[in-house]
């Protein structure tokens, strides 16, 4: 069983390209120049883990704006059970408290987050679909080398940055190198590309 898990992990790594690694390559500063601050964990964790983290996150959603499915067994679980582990401010991260919810004020969790494993009596037949979902932008843009990166994703219902970018984040590659700073949007602005201007929407016009 362990062998299978290792094999799956290796396959996942192999199947992911190495483009982010290239992006993270930095050239040495010229004399008199200041080195660009390492403001993104993307630049400090191994590229293969960045890839694996991204693949994992993408695998939980059918497309960018879809809520993630529940990546664990949900047999017998009710709405009321979710925040037992996914509380907004879990004191200690552990295997039992994997990730807080960034919108703890929402209490009907199972309204949006679907089970990914059917109940025991069900059999899943494959769904034949041509769906291709929108990918989530996953890396901020910088206006220049020393500028703070923009927030590449939308912020609505994810207002609590530290849940995903704090030191307790499930994803090492998302962790901020400066967790002592708490006013994130002082420097990191939502990227223009993550806004949603509604088009009037009339094919013939």
């Amino acid at each position: 069983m362990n062998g299978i898990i290792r094999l799956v992990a290796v396959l996942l790594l192999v199947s992911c390209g190495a483009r982010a690694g290239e992006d993270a390559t930095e050239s040495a500063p010229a004399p008199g120049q200041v080195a660009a601050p390492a403001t993104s964990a993307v630049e400090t964790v191994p590229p293969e883990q960045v890839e694996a983290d991204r693949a994992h996150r993408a695998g939980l959603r059918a497309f960018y704006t879809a809520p993630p499915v529940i990546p664990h067994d949900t047999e017998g679980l009710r709405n009321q059970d979710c925040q037992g582990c996914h509380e907004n401010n879990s004191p200690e991260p552990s295997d039992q408290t994997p990730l807080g919810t960034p919108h703890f004020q929402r209490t009907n969790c199972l309204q949006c987050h679907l089970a990914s494993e059917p109940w025991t009596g069900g059999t899943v037949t494959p769904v034949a679909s041509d769906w291709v979902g929108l990918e989530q932008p996953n890396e901020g843009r910088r206006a220049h080398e020393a500028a703070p990166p923009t927030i590449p994703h939308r912020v609505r219902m994810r207002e609590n940055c530290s849940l995903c970018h704090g030191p307790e984040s499930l994803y090492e590659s998302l962790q901020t190198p400066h967790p002592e700073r708490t006013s994130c949007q002082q420097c990191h602005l939502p990227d223009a590309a993550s806004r949603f201007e509604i088009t009037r929407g009339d094919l013939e016009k």
Partner: protein
Amino acid sequence: MNGLNRRDFIKRSAHLAALAVLAPTVPGKASAANTSLPDGLAWYKAPCRFCGTGCGVIVGVLDGRVVAVQGDPDNTVNKGLLCAKGYHAGMALYGKDRLTHPMIRRNGKLKRVSWDEAIDHIADRIMEDPKRFSIYGSGQWTIGEGYICQKFMKAGLGNNHIDPNARLCMASAAVGLVTTFGVDEPSGCYDDLDECDTVITWGNNWAEMHPVLFSRFMDRKHARAKSSPDQLTYIDMGTRRTRSTLAADHYLEFVPQTDLAIANCICYQLLAEDTYDKAFVADHVRFKGNDGSEMTLEDYRAFLAPYSPEKVAALSGVSEEQLRLLGGIFGDPHRKVVSLWCMGMNQHTRGTWINNLVYNVHLLSGKIGKAGSTPFSLTGQPSACGTCREVGTFAHGLPGGRLVAKAEHRAECEALWNVRPGTLNPKPGYHTMKMFQALNSGELTGMWVQVTNPGQTIPNLNQNVNQLRDRFLVVSDVYPTVTTEMADVVLPAALWVEKHGVVGNSERKTQQWFRMVNPPGEARDDVWQVLAVARRMYERGFEGMRDKDGNFLLAIRDEKGREIKAWKWKVFNKTFNVDRALFEEYRPFTIKKHKDVAPYDELVRTHGLRWPVVQDSRGVWRETKRRFVEGEDPYVEEGKAVQFYGAAAGDDRAIIWARPYEAPPEVPDDEYPLWLCTGRVLEHWHTATMTGRIKPLHDAMPRAYVELHPEDAEAHGLNEGDLVRITSRRGSIVLPLWLQGRSLPQRGLIFVPFFDETKLINMVTLDAYCPMSKEPDFKKCAVRVESVT
């Protein structure tokens, strides 16, 4: 990588493989660095395709394909939130087995044909026997779709055999409103959930079926500090514990059908305790006996005598204490109470009565026509209100709340449609159940089914659809269904944002969207399909398809009155917005009963408007949050405060009806000892024709199941996962048992969802219906269970 993260990583990776990756992008692509959304991505507004809540969605379109959906923060219904179905609605378009070309059955097999051939064939067959043809439509029809079918049948064929699946869903609600208030559709709105302090659900699992509304109230409730003196209260009344019950402060479990007695018991207490709203009753209410005779308050008091808490507790299984809790809440003049219900009350052999009775409770307590206090009938389908009830696509209806039986109403429609007086048939057509029975007997010879799936949803299928294969059956749909399997002609339809549309939700909100992507293959709009058949009949000289000047009855005209050749697909699809023309043609019908819908262009500009929408003195179109309320509804006269202006008697009074408890037609006995209740689940919409092709929804809920109370399971020797045969007097099916499921039925009751086309629970259900609304009861019949494992 520290130890914890490595462990997590391995765990996650293993799980990811098990998930088979939801995002079906090019391998590796999803994980590459990606700093912006793609060029050319555009976002458009639409209402969600699925339920009657009517959430606003924003649809992301790239290269002619839907690629994302998110909640519309500017829509007052959902304020940016959706449910799992709504978020994944765009995926419904892309199942691999979309119907992409017309087909005609030859020698038992469906064969591909051209559109011309299909349209010719349908026109021929209808012209052979136009009076015995029928249309079975849907609460999922857009307003344009329902309107054109209505005109095609009633003005074109002079035939009233058109009915929608809303008959199985909302008919009791509509007849309940018409009998109590003289006019259909709720007076309150969703905003009342933001202002009430108490919500009572009458047999309604809104956590799963109207989750966005459930969250709207529940998030507000949970946000109150535990120490706050102003706690919000949620009371759930039902026959099984559901996901909603888990959030309730009080759960009142009643014996099926005794909701009738419980409602009367509340009124009994209001009178006995003298806590009814005397001023409201004096000003706005009158009393009627069950036979329609006038009643005094004292007569009504005498009628209520059998409904004391003691007696009703014995009948219903609800404790006296809990019944008194309800009486106390309605008797408290400071409480603001919203009652909610949907199929639990509507799919009921006394569906009209129970709707009347809940209005009685709110009228007697004066909890109506006030912000935060209202009885509110939720709808199941996205345009059950907008299309079926407002366009009047029932066998007895005409647009704008009119009736075929009323000469004045027929004359108004004949004038608006420019047809000769006497064109419209004064005799109501067959309602849904009678329509299918008439098809069985051969009295009706043909049917065109649009946007629904009766082969799966009609109760007692063995009895009611067994002859459908032998009749001329046309089915317009987007995927193969149980019904297309029986069809002679299958027409591929455009789905949701592949066409223009307007729909109306539960709170009178009309919402519009534009086509965003093209339908696949040769699929075409339902509206075009009807237009094309009508035009073919016109060309062949069918008299009904001419108006009184000899012009094409269904002519689509531009703003200058010039006829557009909309029956030509290229014209329809590319050069002219037929949906706008149809909506503007329909709009004048809505004024008579003060149901004025907004002009199309206002709907384009806004995120939906609640009717009546009337221009104010500055020319601004104003929506109405609460009907019959002075200051909100422009049709209420000054100084009236509340005016039930729909009252048939013209006295502005709503009617409190003395409706008794009546036992259901089939109750459990020795041979069939259990109640069967059917319903929906959060993941699936209707018969899962669409949601069954959406991977995350299907994976979460792949197949139907049966739920039993654990003690009943034990008594029958049944264990989790066992295959169970469920048998009624009408049929039987086998389902796996789910004991750890999401609902807990009361002792003696089992629950089965109806979405699964491989497990047709309607083989088992009863086809008895409410004699007033003709809506069948899918919630109560007698069955037995046995293990087949």
